[in-house]
């Protein structure tokens, strides 16, 4: 544990002997902090540049501050035309048109908004719920707490109850959606709360819920959630929530256990450090310690994983679109642009290719940034 020997900024014995160091020595750390972002590689800057560009385009397209044309306007003369298309390129339209004759640039720009909204939203949801649960689980792993286990059990039980009994009640017993959800929710709350109180073991409770969720293949779980939330016209049920929100919830819920386990693991190691006990020995409350002492230490790891997860969520949005449960047309997203025109792959490859290329580059950029962030925070952690 004598890492200070390796640390060139450690004042070591000099300071211990009571020597006052010249101001320049302390200022050296200031310069180091600035250089942390000054020595990023070219690749990192390209990745940052790309993400800024895509996000900017998405916001401009959505807010109509600067548009690339109407994504819904049909230009019949341009249909199926584009670079490398069988019918030839479309004059005046750089990326060509889709099979209905809608301008690809306009659709891709607005599609960026939808895809990014879904993926960022889903990961934000996954992080708030999964990260929060993981933090609580990790922190309380060596501290039995009946009230907290009861609350955690109740919340999780209610969520499971709504989904499970919602399906059974609505489909099997013919109850109305709302009633089934309320019964499931109250039942789950009571059962979860009771069992949580009995055991008082928050960690085991939450970890097992994660394990149950992870035991269902991610894509099947997402598909089931979307199908459940969207309802179907045949069964006479209608979605209450807008499309994008449904996708955010579905992908977000799938992300909860993945993120939660990482957050739990990180919180577990940090919670066993002496400074947590020291804070306790100073009279700090559990909640305060979790938020102010543990969370800031867990956050860097979470941030780097969030970048990687957003990349996965973008792909997941595309996958769900191809499976027919994505954002419903006419609103464009990168996923449903591919899904709608996948039949035209051989005659007008540019449609699928352009959307796939955007997904590819964006995922690459996010992965790269995630790695850069992780490497940077690892260095910082080892310096302590």
């Amino acid at each position, binding site marked *: *544990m*004598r*890492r*200070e020997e390796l*640390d060139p*900024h*450690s*004042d*070591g*014995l000099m*300071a*211990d002997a*009571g*020597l*006052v*160091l010249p101001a320049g020595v*302390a200022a050296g*750390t200031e310069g180091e902090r600035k250089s942390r972002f000054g020595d990023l590689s070219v690749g990192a800057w390209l990745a940052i540049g790309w993400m800024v560009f895509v996000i900017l385009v998405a916001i401009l397209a959505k807010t109509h501050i600067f548009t690339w044309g109407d994504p819904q306007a049909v230009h019949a003369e341009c249909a199926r035309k584009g670079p490398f298309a069988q019918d030839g390129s479309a004059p005046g339209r750089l990326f060509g048109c889709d099979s209905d004759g809608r301008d690809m640039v306009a659709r891709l720009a607005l599609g960026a908004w939808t895809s990014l909204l879904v993926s960022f939203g889903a990961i934000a949801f996954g992080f708030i719920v999964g990260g929060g649960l993981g933090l609580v689980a990790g922190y309380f792993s*060596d*501290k*039995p707490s009946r009230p907290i286990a009861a609350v955690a059990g109740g919340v999780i039980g209610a969520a499971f109850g709504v989904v499970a009994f919602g399906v059974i009640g609505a489909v099997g017993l013919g109850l109305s959606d709302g009633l089934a959800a309320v019964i499931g929710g109250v039942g789950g709350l009571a059962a979860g709360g009771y069992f949580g109180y009995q055991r008082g073991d928050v960690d085991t409770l939450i970890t097992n819920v994660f394990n149950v969720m992870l035991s269902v293949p991610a894509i099947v779980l997402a598909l089931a959630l979307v199908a459940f939330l969207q309802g179907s016209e045949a069964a006479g049920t209608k979605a209450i929530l807008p499309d994008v929100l449904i996708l955010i919830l579905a992908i977000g819920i799938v992300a909860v256990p993945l993120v939660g386990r990482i957050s739990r693991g990180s919180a577990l190691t940090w919670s066993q*450090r*002496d*400074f947590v*006990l*020291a*804070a*306790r*020995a*100073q*009279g*700090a*409350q559990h909640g305060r310690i979790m938020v*102010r*002492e543990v969370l*800031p*230490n867990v956050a860097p790891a979470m941030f780097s994983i969030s970048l990687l997860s957003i990349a996965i969520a973008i792909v997941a949005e595309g996958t769900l679109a191809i499976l027919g449960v994505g954002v419903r047309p006419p609103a464009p997203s990168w996923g449903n642009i591919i899904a709608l025109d996948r039949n035209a792959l051989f005659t007008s490859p540019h449609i699928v290719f352009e959307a796939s290329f955007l997904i590819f580059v964006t995922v690459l950029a996010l992965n790269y940034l995630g790695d850069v962030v992780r490497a940077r925070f690892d260095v910082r*952690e080892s*310096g*302590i």
Partner: protein
Amino acid sequence: MTTARFIETEYEGPLLEVTDLKTSFHTDVGVVRAVDGVSLTLERGKTLGIVGESGSGKTVLSRSIMNLLPRFGLEREGSVKFEGKEIIELPPRQMRNFWGAQMSMIFQDPMTSLNPVMKIGKQITESIRQHLDVTREFSSDLAVSLMESVRIPEPKVRLGEYPHQLSGGMRQRVCIAVALAAGPKLLFADEPTTALDVTVQAQVLDVIAKEQSERFMAMILVTHDLGVVAGRTEEILVMYAGRVVEQAPTSVLFTDMKMPYTEALLASIPKLDEHSHTRLATIPGRPPDLSHPPPGCKFAPRCRYVQDRCLEEEPPLQAGDASGHQYRCWFPVGTPAGQEALARNERDGRVPAAATAAAAAGGA
């Protein structure tokens, strides 16, 4: 909560009274009795040293008194009275009023007992603002004066820095400042110098001693090093396998020790007047497995004075000649019985069981 500490109870008795404290952990391998019937009394402003090797239960004892142990499988029995008030049964919610404001703790490793992503100043003021109803300006002024009193140069600059920018000794002094921030009456120092360079150890101990006398604060100094407690404590409690094996005022302990374990601990400190290359004295073997302690005296398997009786019957804590001196031994050091036991062992060639085991392991 903030007003509680200003209502001074006019309690005349000792600050801390621990009676027959037992602390055990229920684990998969059985019940581990980490602290087994420890009693101690501490007056205001006094210092008690707790000495013992790793695994003797000294850290668990101090955390058990503060009720800071992880609660899974934990069982505590006995009585802990702070200013005459029984606190062993208090739930953590009520113990929070004691933590920091009444009793506080300094930990062994300053590398891990400070939060790496929180500025020093914040870590000190957190505790002040938790317990005292004061303004932000007042608490930061208090933090500066605390930093000055633990002899950290340029306190204002240091308050804005992170722990990794400080050296080990400085960090431990910051830990002391954090522990003292809310003005506790009792300070637990759990091996406060073990992780530090020898040159820094004395400085840190001096800072603690200075603060202690200025604040008239009682202290329990936990260490494995008899040298650390020698000049700094009024009373010393030697622990082995979760029990008190000897307890005496400091001067009595060093001049008239009765327990062979204390003698062995003292003998294992290298002395300056010995020739260089003198073989260091060690205690053979290791402390017993606390989930399955041996019958009889717990130290018997490692003891030079060991007799058959030691292996069968556990000696009770008995009073020594000086007042306040207690020990747990059938054949005490420096008594005719002890001399005789040692002489008999030398004559018969009897060595402690742990020594033969260690020799066999070393030879194999």
